[in-house]
């Protein structure tokens, strides 16, 4: 999601806008830019973090300005594609949030009339259209009023022009709010950048165009002046971002069905064919949760496609001789994980083909790898990965689907329904058991072994209860000594070849006095008899069972941490992305 900020008033605009953009960081971004009315239009655009690049931006002059954070959807993230965009003469600057659907057609027309386009964005057509109108009459409001009817799609735009000390704002189907201060005005995608300066807000309606000068604000609708009420805002910045959920993590858990579906839809099988055309060998490098995603991938891939796969912790990869054949897949949510980057670079130097899977368009990893597949999870704020993990699984499962000759059919397109189903579950009984536990053991076989690892990771990450995941058969080789009534075991026991042996494993654990929570299939009659607490997952194919059991573990970890009063979103000692070795 992009974010926009504008200012006109008595203060220096640039530092204020940069601060405002920082407040919009939570929407996610990969590049940003600011333009002010100083000596002509002054412009600064950067790729990357605002905090790292702000110094060259804040020194722009002028008391009127606009700024933008971009989360790339069309066109790669770089300085050229970053907003604000200028017209051919550099006299008009525009920032835009939304999508112009008819931009290709408009762009062709404009190019045939001699306009030069610098970027690949849809936004640039707006500024060239304004330029044309502005030539006939030097009135920016008039120009925007004439351009807006030509645009199809959604937009919130802010425009400034050299020689006019005013800010023009227009919106249609993208959010835009105006903050009313004392002889100063603010405009932004939401109230977060504005709240620090004023609590008086004016929301623009679809089709409104505002002409904002230092002393005066006028709003036009269909060419007529209208008034919009001023509202007093009394909520805090944090409320906005969590959108009513108690924690980001819970919000993100509930966004998973959408994240999975969007990622499956976006990971086009036809383009995938070019990227991974039946390699002889696959190596996966990753850290943390992504490593677990890689391990699930390895299990499912080898079973479905009979392609040998190897998985390494990115941090350990360098201690092995580099693979010489096949493809190397690096998985990183942020795309900035230092170890994973180093591993990919090393593989590349040995002439291996590299593929990155990441959530952030234009992140370092996507520039390092030969090809990149993006997950469509949207920005993830909670440190514990939830929806990005599910979106990673979506990309990886789609790869398997492609390599296995599309064996999955439309199963993956319906998988989000099963996730939705799991979100309706009540895990309170299991939470009561877990919250007083000393240690928790997660066990499973086959692909459910890495699921157990991930479940245990989530639990220790946020509830601080010691938890370990094991392959069910391994428990007997040591950890059995630790079992006691204070160490619940969470066992995944799905119908299939592992069912019988899992049941006998569970019985052995019960015999050592450990309470067992069994995750099984709906309608199972044997498992509920054996375990203390039975959690039933909807009946689905194995691929989907992996997803549903992951989601149950997330819910379990979340509610346990909440019951213990932990700070779920910012667990102690942890950072969202690890950018050092």
């Amino acid at each position: 999601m992009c974010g926009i900020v504008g200012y006109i008033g008595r203060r220096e605009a640039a530092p204020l806008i940069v601060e405002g953009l920082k407040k919009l960081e939570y929407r996610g971004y990969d590049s940003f830019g600011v333009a002010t009315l100083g000596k002509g239009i002054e412009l600064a655009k950067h790729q990357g973090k605002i905090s790292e690049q702000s110094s060259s931006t804040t020194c722009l002059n002028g008391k009127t300005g606009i700024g933008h954070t971009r989360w790339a959807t069309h066109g790669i993230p770089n300085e050229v594609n970053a907003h604000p965009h200028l017209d051919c003469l550099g006299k008009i600057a525009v920032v835009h949030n939304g999508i112009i659907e008819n931009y290709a057609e408009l762009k062709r027309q404009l190019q045939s009339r001699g306009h030069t386009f610098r970027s690949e964005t849809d936004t640039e057509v707006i500024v060239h259209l304004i330029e044309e109108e502005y030539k006939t009459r030097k009135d920016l409001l008039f120009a925007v009023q004439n351009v807006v009817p030509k645009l199809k799609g959604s937009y919130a735009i802010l425009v400034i022009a050299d020689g006019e000390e005013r800010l023009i704002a227009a919106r249609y189907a993208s959010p835009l709010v105006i903050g009313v201060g004392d002889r100063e005005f603010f405009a932004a995608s939401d109230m977060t950048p504005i709240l620090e300066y004023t609590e008086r807000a004016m929301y623009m309606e679809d089709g409104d165009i505002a002409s904002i000068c230092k002393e005066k604000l006028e709003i036009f609708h269909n060419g007529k002046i209208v008034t919009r009420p001023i509202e007093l805002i009394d909520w805090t910045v944090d409320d906005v971002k969590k959108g009513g959920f108690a924690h980001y993590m819970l919000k993100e858990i509930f966004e998973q069905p959408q994240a999975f579906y969007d990622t499956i839809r976006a990971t086009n099988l036809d383009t995938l064919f070019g990227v991974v055309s039946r390699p002889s060998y696959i190596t996966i490098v990753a850290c943390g949760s992504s490593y677990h995603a890689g391990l699930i991938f390895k299990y499912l891939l080898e079973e479905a496609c009979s392609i040998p796969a190897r998985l390494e912790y990115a941090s350990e990869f360098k201690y092995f001789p580099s693979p010489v054949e096949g493809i190397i897949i690096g998985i990183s949510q942020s795309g900035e994980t230092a170890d994973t980057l180093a591993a990919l670079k090393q593989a590349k130097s040995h002439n291996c083909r590299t593929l990155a899977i990441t959530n952030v368009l234009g992140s370092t990893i996507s520039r390092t790898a030969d090809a990149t597949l993006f997950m469509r999870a949207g920005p993830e704020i909670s440190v514990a990965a939830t929806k990005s993990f599910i979106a990673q699984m979506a990309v990886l499962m789609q790869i398997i689907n492609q390599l296995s000759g599309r064996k999955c059919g439309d199963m993956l397109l319906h998988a989000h329904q099963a996730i939705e189903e799991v979100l309706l579950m009540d895990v309170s009984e299991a939470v009561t058991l877990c919250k007083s536990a000393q240690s928790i053991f997660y066990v499973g076989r086959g692909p459910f072994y890495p699921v157990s690892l991930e479940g245990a990771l989530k639990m220790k990450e946020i509830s601080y209860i010691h938890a370990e995941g094991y392959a069910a058969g391994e428990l007997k080789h040591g950890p059995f000594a630790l079992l006691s009534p204070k160490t619940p075991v969470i066992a995944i026991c799905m119908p299939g070849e592992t069912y019988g042996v899992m049941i006998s494993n569970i019985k052995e654990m019960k015999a050592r006095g450990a309470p067992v929570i069994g995750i099984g299939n709906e309608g199972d009659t044997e498992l509920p008899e054996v375990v203390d607490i039975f959690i039933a997952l909807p009946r689905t194919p194995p691929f989907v069972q992996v997803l549903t059991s992951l989601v149950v573990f997330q819910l379990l970890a979340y509610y346990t941490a909440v019951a213990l009063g932990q700070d779920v979103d910012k667990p102690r000692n942890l950072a969202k992305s690890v950018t050092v070795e």
Partner: protein
Amino acid sequence: MQAVILAAGEGKRVRPLTRSRPKAMIPVANHPIIEYVIEALLKNGIRDIIVVVGYRKEQVTRFLNQLDIPIDVVVQDKQLGTANALQCAELKIKGDFLLLPGDNYIDPQSVARIKGIPNAMLVKEHPNPSNFGVVQLQDGLVTSIIEKPEHAPSFMVSTGIYSLKKEFFSCIHGNDMTDAIASIVETGGHIQAIPADDWQDAIFAWDLLKMNRRLLGNLPSGKEGVVSRQTTIQGAVKIGKGSTIGPNTVITGPVVIGNDCIIGPNCCIQPNTSIGSRVSLEPFTYIGNTLVMDDTIIGSHSRVMDSVIGERCKLGDHTSSNKATGLLDIEGIVIRSEFGAILGDNVTSGPFSIYKNSIIGNNTIIESKNSVISRIIPDGSLVI
């Protein structure tokens, strides 16, 4: 001005549709009912909106998050009643405010009528007043209000929409709004009654069809997705992104079709039909006056009329669901009703199944060639 929308209650009488959502979140004409309420407020310039959530609160909150404007969410832990729900929002109330149920449709004009008048309620005549708070009026003021009386003294009912002052909180005794209003009226306080224009409540699941008809009337047409050139479209028809409409399909509006649907070829969609997203209608299927929610598949050669079909249902070929009249026992009361089928979420039914005036619970499996007439099948059943 502020507004409080109540969306905490499940809405037991519209079961089985409330398994994964409260009544306020049931999609009618492809938008949850609460969205129409929020829209009516926004059209009146009311943007400071507080929603009280409870039953399935995460699902409601997630939806509210997708809206353009920030909405304040308050949680009611136990669903004790409407006045109790309002009390959950007390700390956020600064002055005069509107109170609205999230599960009733209200038009913006009616909101405009009441918003400036403190201590008022919107009232409307209803043919079955016994399901509501029945009010008696004199000179535009409320003289009495009785909650769900067996013998209603008038046809005028409270819509549950109030315009109140902050002081109202000190008048709340008991858990229900009707009690609170009754005690104000009894102690000589004034509550103005203002007639509502268009207010719709779906008391029972089949009432959703009427609401659907009403709301489809406001529908702007628009076609995205891929529509075959051999498709015949008449009237107001809205087709979402990514949907494909096969050849020789006939669609007669008002009809709305969501995103990523696969319709036809050779289907016939009759007026007053809402189809959610990712739905597939297999060839030669005839559907009309029906509400189909997301991810459902309706088999070929089916005829589905006057029905509400939940999410993720899989109906086999030659399914027939036709309007019939019968008596059904809903929450202990026997009610005369007329519709085809009400299907909960994830109902799987085999080929040649027949429904007449039947309610099928969530996650039910119905094997082929069964006919279910004037019956309620509970959640999770297997019909052989």
